[in-house]
């Protein structure tokens, strides 16, 4: 008897369900996450039990590096049409006698990450390309003779009175660096701060501790 030959079928896998799964994951990721904007210095944030989320607008952020360099960031306000950043830069330009062109103002308005450039180099910084910018960021001057950070605070609050100070620091930064920024803020009558932290769960049982 002849052997029954089964026709060799090609192993065909239907990829459609897999595509569906991936599409779902992709959409989930797109909706739940926000883009991580590049930061001029990497900071290792301290932990706390606070569960208040970071506000999306009306905040000015002071990024303090390990060496005490200060980077400043402020948002455009609750509506992008308000263009607060642009106004703040214009005011700063008036203060330091720098005239910014339309394209420079637009560049500053759209700039996503904190900036740590002295005003004197700001024009050059905004016109430079990405790779050249990194070396120009030396931190905003905070000496009492040239307190540009104070000016940034002053004009940010003038342009957007609802703005709140947010401090983002590395947990290993020596405290005097932070203290300097706190002092400048208090000089400008800002007494309420937000400290950016990572969430850490702590559960305590009073009876256990007392025994």
């Amino acid at each position, binding site marked *: 008897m002849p052997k029954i030959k089964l026709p060799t079928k090609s192993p065909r896998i239907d990829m459609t369900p897999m595509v569906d799964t991936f599409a779902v994951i992709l959409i989930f990721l797109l909706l739940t996450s926000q883009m991580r904007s590049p930061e001029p210095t990497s900071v290792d944030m301290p932990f706390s039990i*606070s569960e208040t989320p970071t506000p999306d607008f009306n905040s000015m952020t002071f990024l303090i590096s390990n060496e005490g360099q200060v980077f400043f960031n402020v948002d455009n306000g609750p509506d992008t049409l308000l263009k607060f950043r642009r106004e703040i830069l214009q005011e700063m330009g008036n203060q330091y006698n720098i005239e910014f062109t339309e394209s420079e103002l637009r560049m500053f308005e759209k700039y996503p990450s904190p900036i740590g450039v002295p005003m004197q180099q700001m024009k050059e910084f905004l016109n430079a390309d990405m790779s050249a910018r990194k070396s120009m960021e030396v931190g905003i001057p905070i000496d009492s003779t040239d307190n540009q950070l104070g000016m940034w605070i002053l004009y940010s609050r003038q342009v957007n009175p609802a703005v709140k100070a947010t401090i983002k620091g590395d947990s290993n930064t020596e405290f005097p*660096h932070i203290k300097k920024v706190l002092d400048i803020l208090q000089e400008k009558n800002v007494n309420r701060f937000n400290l950016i932290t990572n969430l850490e769960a702590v559960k305590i049982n009073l009876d256990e501790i007392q025994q």
Partner: protein
Amino acid sequence: MAEIIQQEKGGGGKKKAKKLLPHMDMTPMVDLMMLLITFFMLTTSLSKSKIMEIMLPEKIRDPNAAPPKISASRTLNILLGPDDKIYWYPGGVDAEDYENLPPVIETDYSAEGIRALLLDRNTTLFRTINDFEQQVLEGKIRISQDSVAASISKLKSDDDTGPIVLIKAYDKADYGNFVDILDEMNICGIARYTFMDIAWYERQMVERAAGLPITPATAAN
């Protein structure tokens, strides 16, 4: 890759036009999806960072203004020292008696260290808040979620048994210590705490306790 296309041998003499379902190869699409997912996973941060609110006392601009008076028996001074150490002493320092500075007690940021101390001092208030939260959870007190926080802050401001904590940071302390101690205040439900500049004698107390060279008192201090 996933599909090996094999030509079917045409058997028989008559060619029959086979009706095939239009089949689409999804493999490249899967590849593309994988790539996109990987890209988004790497460039985004899922968990939003949190904020901790803190209010500092207003700077007294008038040099002749007297600092606010607080009762020494409830005061707890916490000095943030170098190397993740805390030095604390109760009460105040007598302005006339700088020769006899009170001894400081060393502790750390662990649950057995500063937290045990704070909870010990703040037991009454902590228990009140804890009981309140428990009753809300069990449904014995029916209030809306929004007013829970308001009720707790009311409990805190009505309290007059807990310590008044004055936090002072020595120069060698770091930012992590600062956040940790404020966090500890929130954990222990301390109603009254504030952050202050360190005084010259307190700096000396830390230096003496930590075995560091002592900075002499200057006019600036």
